């Protein structure tokens, strides 16, 4: 039996309804979905305002690394059924969903929440996507702080 998977870099709006339907099986009873949005106002660490974010991706490698994240999820939580990992790119304004990680399973107590959490954490470590932040103070590339090991 093979489970539905979606890995995508896209310029289109994230459609949660369609993505959820695409990873729902007859045996599915639960889904955990994480979405990130552009914050217009940030308070923590360095308080600032954001006019928009400009995302870019190394698309084929990004989609391959999303698949790797999904494999890592399945190795840790074997009861996961469907997995969707989608990163939107381009110019994105505050309140816009930018990324989605969704995991489905028969029941809610076998790892869907943990799997979705793991998915977004790993995406932010190894999936080659970058964002430039543009605001009243000017523009600046945001840099992560994770250095993947060779082959990771």
């Amino acid at each position, binding site marked *: 039996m093979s489970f539905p998977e979606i890995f995508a870099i896209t310029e289109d709006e994230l459609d949660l309804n369609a993505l959820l339907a695409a990873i729902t099986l007859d045996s599915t009873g639960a889904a955990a979905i994480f979405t990130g949005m552009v914050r217009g106002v940030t308070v923590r660490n360095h308080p600032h305002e954001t006019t928009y974010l400009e995302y870019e991706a190394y698309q084929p490698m990004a989609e*391959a690394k999303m698949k790797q994240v999904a494999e890592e999820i399945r190795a840790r939580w074997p009861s996961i059924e469907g997995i969707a990992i989608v*990163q939107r790119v381009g110019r994105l304004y505050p309140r816009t969903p930018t990324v989605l990680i969704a995991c489905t399973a028969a029941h809610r107590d076998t790892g869907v929440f943990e799997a979705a959490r793991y998915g977004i954490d790993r995406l932010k470590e190894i999936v*080659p996507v970058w964002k430039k932040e543009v605001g009243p103070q000017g523009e600046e590339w945001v840099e992560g702080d994770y250095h993947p090991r060779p082959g990771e």
Partner: protein
Amino acid sequence: MNPVKVLFFATLRHQAGVRSTEIEIPEGITVRQLKERLVERFPGLDWQVMDHCLASVNQEYCADEDIIPPGAEVAFFPPVSGG
């Protein structure tokens, strides 16, 4: 000689001034040696930044010591910041 395709992303793309380039390199040279050649070819590329950036060969993360295989696609970029 070994033709490789080089890609730059984010700040490195900005510094290089191009998204991608084709370059002929001798067989058997390492990722680090390619970085040195690129810094020569693209004066805007900062060596400190290239020295500490992430690199991939054929879409897998690699080490500076890795030998670049013929026809490879090699990319250079800062630590990722998606999400």
